């Protein structure tokens, strides 16, 4: 039972990271109809910057956090302005290829700036693990869960209560309609990239003490975040959030009880199963169109 609790907790922690990345995918997809394959690189940038700022320059935690978030958000906005905006008339497939180019470019630049070796990051909270019902829970894991829930609630509030958030929801529902009632789609797209990049950067910051920061960490995280987003149906923040958590828990449980070697395959096996059984996403209300 203690084992199960520890697995469950580790799964939720993993899942929290996927959930943040999935939120990022969902936001850009809803604003532009594009799957952003550079999403994982924003996570990598967040982790890399954290490693640099805390390791090399000894920034205090609370100062480092906003600096990294703003920086990654700027990179996101810049990505949109420099690569997506000039090609905004092109088909989604072309835009997706462009995001793949951005991903290759960012990864290459990161390798150039930080080198190929993993950079260590010190734990954010000193001290030993917490004990709960006989299970030991690492403090960093607790922090990751808290930050993720907070980030999710903030995003949800942004979508529900701010003008820009409402505009984004309108745009996801009907792009042309949103334009007709005077929403500036161009600005909206830029903001959605910044917001999405910031969320992924946040995932990178909080995961960095656990996995360390490497230039190529983004690819797998990005793909799993994408799986989580498809799980949730790419429609709502709540869907992406739950999709991420479910994916993380199932992945960790199967790694713990079945085989850890095939751990990375689990997310994608589940992705295939969801696609074939409920293609509109596990948690979505829409139904997929049959041919």
């Amino acid at each position: 039972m203690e084992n199960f609790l520890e697995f469950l907790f580790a799964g939720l922690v993993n899942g929290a990271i996927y959930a943040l990345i999935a939120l990022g995918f969902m936001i850009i997809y809803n604003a532009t109809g594009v799957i952003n394959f550079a999403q994982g690189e924003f996570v990598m940038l967040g982790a890399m910057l954290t490693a640099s700022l805390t390791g090399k320059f000894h920034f205090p935690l609370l100062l480092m956090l906003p600096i990294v978030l703003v920086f990654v958000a700027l990179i996101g906005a810049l990505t949109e302005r420099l690569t997506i905006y000039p090609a905004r008339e092109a088909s989604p497939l072309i835009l997706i290829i462009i995001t793949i180019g951005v991903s290759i470019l960012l990864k290459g630049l990161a390798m150039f700036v930080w080198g190929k070796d993993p950079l260590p990051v010190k734990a954010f909270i000193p001290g030993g693990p917490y004990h709960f019902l006989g299970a030991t829970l690492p403090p960093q894991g607790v922090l990751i869960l808290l930050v993720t829930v907070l980030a999710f609630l903030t995003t949800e509030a942004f979508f529900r209560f701010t003008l820009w958030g409402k505009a984004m929801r309108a745009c996801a529902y009907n792009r042309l309609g949103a334009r007709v009632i005077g929403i500036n789609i161009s600005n909206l797209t830029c903001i959605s990239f910044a917001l999405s990049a910031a969320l992924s950067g946040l995932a990178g910051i909080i995961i960095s003490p656990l996995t360390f920061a490497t230039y190529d960490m983004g690819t797998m995280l990005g793909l799993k975040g994408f799986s989580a987003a498809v799980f949730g149906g790419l429609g709502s923040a709540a869907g992406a959030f739950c999709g991420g958590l479910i994916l993380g828990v199932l992945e960790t449980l199967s790694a713990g009880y079945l085989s850890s070697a095939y751990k990375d395959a689990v997310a994608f096996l589940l992705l295939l199963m969801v696609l074939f059984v409920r293609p509109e996403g596990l948690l979505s209300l829409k139904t997929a169109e049959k041919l």
Partner: protein
Amino acid sequence: MRWEYLKILVLALVVWGVSFWVRNDYIFNVLTMTGLQALVVLGLSLLMGYAGQVSLGHAAFYGLGAYTTGILSAKYGLSPIWGILLAQGLTLTVAFLIGLPSLKLRGHYLAVATLGFGVIVEVIFKESVNLTGGPSGLVGIAPLSLGTYTLTSFKGYYLLVWSVLLFFLLLALHLVHSPIGRILLALHDSEPALRSLGYNIHRLKLGIFLFSASLAALAGSLYAHFVTFISPYSFTFLHSVAFVTMVVIGGIASLWGALGGAVFLSILPEVLSHFEDYEVVIFGMILILVMIFTPEGLISGLERRLWRFAKS
């Protein structure tokens, strides 16, 4: 179609001529690899340009072709011909299982399904060490042989791969210019119209998908017997993405463009390797710039611009 025959004839002559002119094994190696990539891209171009579907897992089919015949050859001493045939059988079965449910739906479900499938295959190549040799790779694959004759020279593989490529290019061009090809083109305009004419679109799409998976597996099998050593790092998600990129750079729905895209993106890293660490950065930049400025594909875009220039 007469133009196409002429173009193929010219290409065949060029390929043949190059084999006399080049004396360097490194260049034959690069050209053979280019031909193999082009074979994968040819099938993918049919799928993307004519069936309107994207596969993000073609490196996995390529790898399935390579590993099936590789394992049968290295571990069980089976002759390459049988290995290649069994690889085809396995790939077609798997592709059928993926294609059947995902092509029934409207939208890019095949892309997501093949993406998931590709990563799963990648993990299996890496983790089932007993069978595949794991991350350190599979050694001891026999070179191609038929009866008592064994093909070992770089030049021999170059000629073989490009002959196979030319054959399938001819086949694909015939397909595109046949009634089936025209139906597939019409698919872009109106699916309901086609359905009302009584065509089974689902079956057509599935057929094209199977054909493209089969070509990828064939290229993979030839690759395994050519290099005689394979590792999981040649069949990753990034390779699948590279294949898609080659199609898009060449211009979707243009088989010749796809060929050009494959040649361009196979040779480019060889040229860029002089820049060492900058290589990836420059590659990414070129990809972004090409997509922004010639979204119809570099090859088609340049062709159109040349025509306009020639007219003025």
